[in-house]
C-alpha cells in the first residue's frame, strides 16, 4: 500500500495531492503538462523534497514532515522509467541493467544471473553487449524497463514510458508492458498522455489538474461520470456542449425528453436540462453500430464512415471505433461485432443510441 499526501510549492505553482495505491496494482496518473505530474513523481522517487505531507510505502515511511523523516532516492526501493530513457551512454545494455544491482552491492554471480534474466524477460538478451546509441528507441526503452525492474523495487514509476516511441514500437511494447506489469509484485504508478494506455493499464485512474487531484476512481467510474471536461476528453467518452433547442420547433420530442442542439447536429436526451448550456456525455458502450438504418426505438441515429479501430485493452475483448459522423462519435463494441459486421476503416455505418444513453453533466470546471 502506498499512501501519499503532500504539498509542494514551486514559484507560483502549488501542488497539493493525496493518493493511495493498493499492493500489486497499477495506478494511472493523467493530467495535462503543467498539472504537477512530474513534481509528484519526483517527490515519490526521492529526487525532490516536498514541503509538507507524508509518503509511506508498505508501512515504510519515506517522508514525513512531522517527524522530519526524509529518505533520498538511493535509500528508497523505487524504479523509474521515463520517456527520455536516460540510459548511461558509456555502458552496454547489460551494464546499464546491472547498474542498480552493483550500486546496491549485489555480488557478481547473482548480478549476472539477474541481469541475464531481466534481459531475457524483455526479449533483448541478444543485445546485451550493445551500447545505447547502437539500439533503436524501442530497444532502448526495453533496456530502461529491465534496468528499473531488475532491482525488484517496491514502487515502479513509469513516466510516459512509451510516448517517445514511434507508433509501431509503441504498440509492440504496450502489449508486453501490460503483461509484465500484471506479473510484477510491485505497486506501479503509470503517467501517461494517452487515453489508450490509461484505459489498458489502469485499474484505477487519478486525474491531476492544476496541482490538485480532480478525480480518482476506477476506469468505469470515470467513464460513467467524468467530473471535468478534461477527464471526458481524455477518456474519449463523447462529450459535447450544446444548447436547448428552441421550444415549438418541428419534431418536438415526447414529454420528459429534451432536444439539445449541437454545433454539428442535434441530440435527444431523456433528462430535463436545467441550464441553457449543457454538456452531454455519451458513453462509447451505449452506442450501437449497424450497417442499415436502425428502425428500433433509438431516438438518436447518426451516419458516418469509420476512421479508426483500436482494440481496448490491447488484447481485450472490446474495440473502440471512431466515426467521422456529425458530430464525431466514439463507439465501443465487442470483437465479435467487429467481425460479424466486417467493420474496417472507410466503411459506412449507422451509430444509434437511446435518449436514455445520453447524460447531462454538471461540470466542476470548464
Amino acid at each position: 500500500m502506498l499512501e501519499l499526501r503532500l504539498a509542494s510549492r514551486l514559484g507560483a505553482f502549488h501542488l497539493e495531492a493525496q493518493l493511495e495505491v493498493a499492493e500489486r496494482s497499477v495506478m494511472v496518473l493523467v493530467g495535462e503538462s503543467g498539472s504537477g505530474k512530474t513534481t509528484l513523481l519526483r517527490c515519490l522517487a526521492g529526487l525532490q523534497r516536498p514541503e509538507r505531507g507524508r509518503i509511506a510505502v508498505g508501512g515504510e515511511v519515506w517522508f514525513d514532515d512531522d517527524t522530519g523523516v526524509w529518505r533520498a532516492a538511493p535509500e528508497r526501493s523505487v524504479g523509474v522509467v521515463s520517456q527520455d530513457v536516460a540510459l548511461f551512454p558509456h555502458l552496454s545494455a547489460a551494464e546499464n541493467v546491472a547498474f542498480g544491482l552493483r550500486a546496491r552491492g549485489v555480488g557478481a554471480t547473482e548480478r549476472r544471473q539477474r541481469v541475464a534474466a531481466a534481459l531475457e524477460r524483455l526479449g533483448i538478451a541478444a543485445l546485451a553487449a550493445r551500447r545505447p546509441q547502437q539500439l533503436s528507441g524501442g530497444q532502448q526503452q526495453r533496456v530502461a524497463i529491465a534496468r528499473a525492474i531488475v532491482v525488484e523495487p517496491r514502487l515502479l514509476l513509469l513516466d510516459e514510458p512509451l510516448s517517445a516511441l514511434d507508433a509501431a514500437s509503441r504498440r509492440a511494447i504496450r502489449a508486453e508492458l501490460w503483461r509484465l506489469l500484471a506479473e510484477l509484485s510491485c505497486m506501479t504508478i503509470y503517467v501517461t498522455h494517452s487515453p489508450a494506455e490509461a484505459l489498458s493499464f489502469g485499474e484505477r485512474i487519478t486525474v491531476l489538474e492544476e496541482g490538485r487531484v480532480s478525480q480518482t476512481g476506477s476506469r468505469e467510474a470515470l467513464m460513467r461520470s467524468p467530473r471535468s471536461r478534461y477527464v471526458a476528453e481524455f477518456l474519449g467518452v463523447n462529450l459535447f456542449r450544446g444548447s436547448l433547442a428552441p421550444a415549438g420547433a418541428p419534431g418536438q420530442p415526447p414529454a420528459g425528453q429534451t432536444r439539445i442542439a449541437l454545433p454539428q447536429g442535434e441530440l435527444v436526451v431523456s433528462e430535463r436540462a436545467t441550464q441553457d448550456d449543457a454538456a452531454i456525455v455519451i458513453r462509447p458502450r451505449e452506442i450501437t453500430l449497424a450497417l442499415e438504418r436502425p428502425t428500433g426505438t433509438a431516438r438518436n441515429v447518426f451516419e458516418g464512415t469509420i476512421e479508426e479501430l483500436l482494440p481496448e485493452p490491447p488484447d481485450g475483448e472490446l474495440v473502440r471505433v471512431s466515426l467521422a459522423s456529425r458530430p464525431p462519435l466514439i463507439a465501443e463494441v465487442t470483437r465479435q461485432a467487429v467481425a460479424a459486421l466486417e467493420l474496417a476503416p472507410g466503411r459506412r455505418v449507422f451509430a444509434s443510441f437511446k435518449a436514455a444513453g445520453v447524460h447531462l453533466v454538471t461540470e466542476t470546471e470548464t
Partner: protein
Amino acid sequence: MRSPAPRRARLSLTRVALLGASALLIAFLVLPFVALLLRVTPGDLAARLASPMVLEALRLSLATSVAATAVVFVLGVPVAWLLATREFPGKRVVEVLVDLPMVLPPTVAGFALLMAFGRAGLAGRALAALGLSLPFTTLGVVVAQVFMAVPFMVGPARASFSGLDPKLLDAAATLGARETFTFFRVALPLALPGILAGVAMSASRALGEFGATITFAGNLPGSTQTMPLAVYEALQSDLDAAVALSVLLLVMAFGLLLGLRAAPVGSFWGHARARAAAR
C-alpha cells in the same frame, strides 16, 4: 529594387574586414615563431639541446609539471564537482578564488606564496617544524606551478560536470547509487573529455610557468631552473641556447594543444557512435 546592390557591397565589405583581420592576426602569431625557427639549423639545434644546462632544465621541467598536473588533478576535480553540483554560501568567493591565478600577475602570485610559505611566512614555521622547506626548492617549483594551473583544471572540469545530463544523475540516484558511486561510475567517465582538456591545459600552464616560480623558488640550475627560467638566463649569456630552449618549448606546447585537438577527447562518445554506425 535598389536594395540588392548596396547589400552586396556591404557583404563584400564584411568579407574584406574578416579576411583582413584574420590574415593580420595569423601573421602576427606566426611571424615570431618563424623568426625563432629561422635562427637555428637542425644540426645546431640538436647540439644545443644536448648541452647539460638544457638537459637539466628539460628534466626538471618535465618532472615538476607532471607532479604539478597530478596534484592539480587530484585536488581540482573534486572542487570542480563541488562547484558544479552544489549551492553553498560563499560559492561566488570560491569561484573567484579558483579563477584568480589566471588573471593575477605571476610575480604577485609568487610573492604571495613567499609570504605564506616562506621561512618567516604565515604557514612557513609550521612547515619548517615538519622539516619541509618550500622556497628555493624543487618542491617550491611544483607549488608555484600548482597555484598557477588551478583555474585551467577546475574550469574545464567544472564545465564538463555542469554539462552532464541531470537525468542521468537522477537515474543513477533512483537506481540506488550514492554520490561517490555516481561520481566514479557516471560523472567521471562522461566528463572525461573536459577533464582531459583540463589536464592538458594545466600541464601546458605548468610547463610554461615563469613569474611565480622565479619569485618563489628562485633560479637555481639543477633544482629550480625550469626551461622558461633557463631561456631567461640564456638570453643574457648564450643566445643560441635560448633559441634552442625556446624552440623546444614551442614544439612541446604546440604538440600538447594539437594532441588535445586531434585526440578523440572532444567527441569521445561521438567516436563510439561513429564506430557503431560503421558496424
